């Protein structure tokens, strides 16, 4: 298998200092990451994944293996971490009961903590903090709603969004990104 070759090549290239033996424990301790340890590398997740089906660069099984091996930096800095379409096909097919999609999401959350995050999430995050919705709300669209006979869109109290964001650490992530702008 091609991804096997890539993986073992990558493992050989890593120097011992790049391995973080604690990394898997960090994943295991996070909500949703608990099942990482059950993976026995059968490859079912990759073979049923709609994204892996159309691109060679995305392999959920490989991502799980990198975490088990402690190759933290290589896993978290990879662009391909963000190609999961969140369809849950892998989760429903894993013979070992690994919550594959949730484990991958834990990797993404950890990548964000290290500062790796695709731009689009900044936009979405800002929209939610400002007005509670993932998309921007334009005056034009709101007017159009009324014209079409729809009730006005309910308004979210921004203070609630901010408070929840501060309690969960989401605020920090989005604010930091704004500083970088």
């Amino acid at each position, binding site marked *: 298998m091609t991804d096997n070759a890539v993986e073992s090549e990558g493992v050989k290239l890593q120097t011992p200092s790049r391995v973080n033996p604690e990394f898997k424990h960090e994943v295991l301790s996070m909500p949703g990451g608990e099942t990482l340890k059950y993976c026995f590398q059968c490859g079912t997740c990759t073979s049923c994944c709609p*994204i892996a089906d159309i691109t060679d660069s995305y392999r959920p099984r490989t991502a799980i293996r990198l975490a088990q091996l402690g190759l933290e930096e290589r896993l978290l800095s990879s662009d391909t971490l*963000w190609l999961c379409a969140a*369809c849950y096909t892998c989760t429903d097919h894993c013979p070992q009961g690994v919550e594959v*999609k949730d484990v991958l*999401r834990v990797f993404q*959350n950890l990548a964000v903590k290290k500062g790796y995050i695709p731009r689009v999430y900044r936009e979405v995050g800002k929209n939610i903090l400002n007005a*509670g919705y993932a998309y921007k709300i334009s005056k034009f669209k709101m007017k159009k709603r009324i014209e079409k006979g*729809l009730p006005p869109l309910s*308004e979210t109290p921004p203070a609630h969004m901010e408070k*929840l964001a501060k309690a969960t650490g989401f605020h920090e992530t989005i604010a930091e990104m704004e500083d970088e702008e």
Partner: protein
Amino acid sequence: MSGKSESTGNSESKKDAVLKYAFYLGCATPLRERAYEISARRVLKELGVKLVEMKGVNCCGLPIDAVNHEMTLALSARNLVIAEKMGLDILTLCSGCTGQLMKTNKHLKGNRESRERVNSYLKIIRMEFKGTIEVKHLLRVFIEDIGFEKLKTYIKRPLSGMRIAAHYGCHLLMPSKYLEFDDFEDPKFLREFIALLGAEPVRYADEKECCGAVIAGVNLDLPLNLIADKFRNVKNAQADAMTTICPSCHLMYDQHQSSAEKMFDETYNMPVLHFTQLLGLAMGIPAEELALDELKVSSEGLLTAMEQTAYVGQSVRKVWS
């Protein structure tokens, strides 16, 4: 408890009682796919289902799960609490919202540690998750609360001769342990719905293939590959139209159809209707009231063919092509 205050619990009486729900719109439907909201409200009015608007709600949380799972839980729990205070079950249109709200609801109901953690966030805004309501996608309301038998009595203009391909999408089925609905590998609910409307459900290759909407903002090429695949399969099966049950899937197949055509230098010309629009048409509601004109890929040819076949009783495809 049951969120439907005017029903008494057992499923028989439920089907006769006035159904009432807290209506959760989410983001994609009102802000990107208005036709879905318009047609859903229109058919539900006709069916006598009462919708109570939810005040002060926010995004379901799914779009930022990859960034911060705790915030996602807090956002979805906040919506659930608003419905709890209304004493009503939530009715959803978006499969993504449905999946997120159902997962959070079930998880928080069954896991004390998570519930306490999320409630510690909600406490700051003076809210508390109690776990007293359920979440249901509109299609599940049709199946489980209204029942197909009763729904059938509303069909006045069967869509005879129309060959329709069902796009199931992912989040109404998976993860199956949370959704507990149909067979996640080979579902049939949407084909049965199409048959109920008098149309012919078309089987095609890779029916369960994902639309890829979740990563469209990160990498649009991959989802375009997925939807092109879908159109080829659907066309091979000679479908006249496709139908979706989720605004994000619809956005991919309708609004991005032309991008996929350009990318692969192919022509699909495949109308993609919201399942509520199809139902409305079959109920005899005029097309103008179902916002069919808001679709990017025109359904005009399809509708004209429908008009004609209604009189001559032949297949839409013969008339149309």
